[in-house]
């Protein structure tokens, strides 16, 4: 008897497509969230675990292009979907304009909410490049930050909008 027997009957092998690469999950317990599998099985800890009930946005990823909280998605349900995480933002370790703007605006303090915000802001600016400030506030209101009071984050978003509009 192996030590995994407690969960064996509830486990399954499956594959996930993440940031353009295929990943195999062997004997994953069916109750595991996408967040858990990314972080603990696949070595992609960029999505963060802050509330695990879809309230804080720290675990934000794109699932087939739609912004979701990966804590509320069963990993086995993401089979066949295209998953994009913060690790998939930017090419070969290059900073994206949003990441660069967060650094320059002073938007990062403890940084725990930041990966989720980076994903959420990319999603917002891809869909609504000219969102006004209130719309930006509304769009990121699902991403809780306890350190910054959002001021420098909003400044970073505005800086990206100015940069992109001028380009």
């Amino acid at each position: 008897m192996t030590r995994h027997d407690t969960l064996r009957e509830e486990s399954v092998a499956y594959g996930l497509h993440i940031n353009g690469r295929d990943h195999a999950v062997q004997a994953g317990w069916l109750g595991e969230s996408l967040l858990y599998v990314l972080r603990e099985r696949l070595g992609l800890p960029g999505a963060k675990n802050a509330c695990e009930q879809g309230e804080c946005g720290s675990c934000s990823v794109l699932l087939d292009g739609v912004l979701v909280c990966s804590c509320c998605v069963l990993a086995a349900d993401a089979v066949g979907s295209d998953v994009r995480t913060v690790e998939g933002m930017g090419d070969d370790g290059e900073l994206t304009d949003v990441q660069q703007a967060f650094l320059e605006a002073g938007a990062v303090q403890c940084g725990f909410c930041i990966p989720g915000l980076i994903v959420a802001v990319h999603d917002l600016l891809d869909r609504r490049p000219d969102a006004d400030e209130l719309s930006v506030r509304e769009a990121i209101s699902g991403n809780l930050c306890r350190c910054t009071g959002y001021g420098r984050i909003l400044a970073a978003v505005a800086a990206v909008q100015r940069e992109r509009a001028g380009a």
Partner: protein
Amino acid sequence: MRSGQRRRTTTAAQASATGTTTRERVGGGIGSDAERPDGVPKVQGRFGFSSDAFAEGMLWGRTLRSPHAAARIRSIDTSGAEQLDGVEVVITAADVPGRATFGLEHPDQPVFASDVVRYQGEPVAAVAAVHPEIARRAVEAIAVDYEPLDPLIDAEAAVDADPIHPDGNVVRHIEIVHGTPDEITGSVVVEGTYEIGMQDQAFMGPESGLAIPDGDGGVDLYISTQWLHVDRDQVAACLALEPEQVRLTLSGVGGAFGAREDVSLQVHVCLLALRTGQPVKMVYSREESFFGHVHRHPARMHYRHHADHDGTLVKVEASLWFDGGAYASSSTAVISNACSFAPGPYRVAHAHVRGWAMRTNNPPCGAMRGFGSVQVCMAHEAQMDKLAAALDIDPVELRLSNALRTGDQLITGQRITGVAPVAECIRAAADAPPLDDDRDEPLRFPGGTGRTADRHHVRRGTGVAVGFKNLMYSEGFDDFSTAAVRLEVGADGAPVATVHCAAAEVGQGFVTLAQQIVRTELWAQVVHLHQADTAIGSAGSTSASRQTWMSGGAVQGACDRVRERLLQRVADRRGIDLTGARREVLALRDGEIRHVDDGWSVPLGEALEDGPVEANYEHHHVRTDPFDERGQGDAHVSFVFAAHRAVVDVDPELGLVRVQQLTTGQDVGRALNPRAVIGQIEGGIAQGVGLAVMEEIVLDEGCIANPSFTDYLIPTALDMPVVDATLIEQPEPGAPYGAKGVGEPPTISSTPAVVAAIRDATGLDLRRVPVRPDDIALRRS
């Protein structure tokens, strides 16, 4: 297992343990908006937080907690858990090899409850299993037979109640008698009773850590905390190990705000690792986090203010009841601060303040940003507004006319010797430009995107509040920080400095500041930060707004010694006498060692050719005194001040509030990184706004009714007002670079400013925070 997993077998914790280095293009000394050295990994999701830690073959730990606020434990049966496949060990109080209790100031809290539980969420047992789901099932399979007791839930009633702990129910009582309060009465007297609910620090990164047994009886712990050494000492005592056998390394900290001062899972996870001989990781869920750390003390405060007709404050009387919950934590220091700063930053010749920190069966309370000043500020500022109304004096003018200045005496008898720009803070906050907004924009209505408010019902109000507190630890505590700095030639021939300091970076930006100091003092542009750990001496806690002063001072002191040794090396090589008056003939400037008189210079890299120059420095602040029996004494090192003006819109029928603008003037001494200071101010204000209108741990007979981010609400980007901050820069004598800590003041007076603004908009008395919709809609004053 996938290769992705195997790649991390060096552990994320160990990866972050390699420290961080300044990126080449990032620079900036003291006074500049230098960038964070940990910024790039943080925006890329590569920064190793404690919950990201990973080790091959690691187990998952989990805690079993009491469902009762008060109960006797009749029996604990762990056999159901032990029988589950994949469970490696189950531990209870009987397994704790050393001291059975821990505590930040007094070891009064059991590592595991054995005979009684004193609060809901108190740890009773812990397990280690191969999968977190097995650990969860194992904890559920532990059978504990409780005999529930009536919980003691009222701090005032606790004085006369049967003791719920061998140490009694009064954790600390303080009385401050200043002047001759029994003989003085003002011509105008106002009084009130104020209450503050229990606030949670609600940091984003949950309590988490990874313990790895060293195979020789000791343990390495990768942990998020505010003070590595005080954690180490508590873990060692409870595990019956020597301090050297317990090595702590700071793993990425996802915010702290006071909640990581106390031990949470540290002892449990180390004990699980030692018992199994395997690495063990623990990560609290958000719900467990609400049970796993201390909160801000709820308080009930009775105040009476006396003034002359011209508005001169003559006497303040206050009785302060702080509910510390089941265990002492830092209650003794919190109540001390509350009493010291009870009148607010005003001159008052006579005062009688009595404070009690009480033990109850409510959740334990301890440190949170503002530490005792937040509670009393809400009360003393309400009193100042009452006094202004009674005297028919403008509230801002009343505050200005009584504002503390350098040389004034506090009610503890201490004279302020440092800068005290209280009036400047008030003017900056009160005179800031008014809010220029579109009041017809529905998205800005109270209730936000729900758009339920009717524009014609919305009323605008404005309020002003002022607060202050101490910097660093008080009452004779020998507070210090240690730093080591090494300067050498790097691989590319350029000078590289390495800083080793155990100061916990919790988001505030000490890592940035440490690099700024080294760039300014030693002209090394590349600065490597060794990971904070217990291999070096203590840096003290990242709390009390103290790291810039204490650890900043330690880094500066170590740099001074490195520079002296380097100059001596050059002097020795060139036969130059540096004794006595000739001490300053050599100077390090612009990356060169220069002879001041002769004009020649040696590049830094050349001076370092003979090898690295290293130095350690231990920075202590000035000595403070304990209080005497009348609460008098020079107990504090330095003071910091801020004022806030809030503009709110209120829908009185629905009870909805929207905080539209916060303006502030803050005494910062000197802004060493102005952008980081603004970040601290905005973030601190967010927590103050949260306390004013939404944040409360709701208790039902001692049990938490809302332990989740669904039910415990913190401000979102939509809830945050526009912030307009003015930094009042008057260098503080005795402070490294003249800088004061900046983290706490934004959280102190922003709350009462918002409440005052709601009173202004509604005409309600509002004696309790957070102000709830029904307080307004049902006009419950």
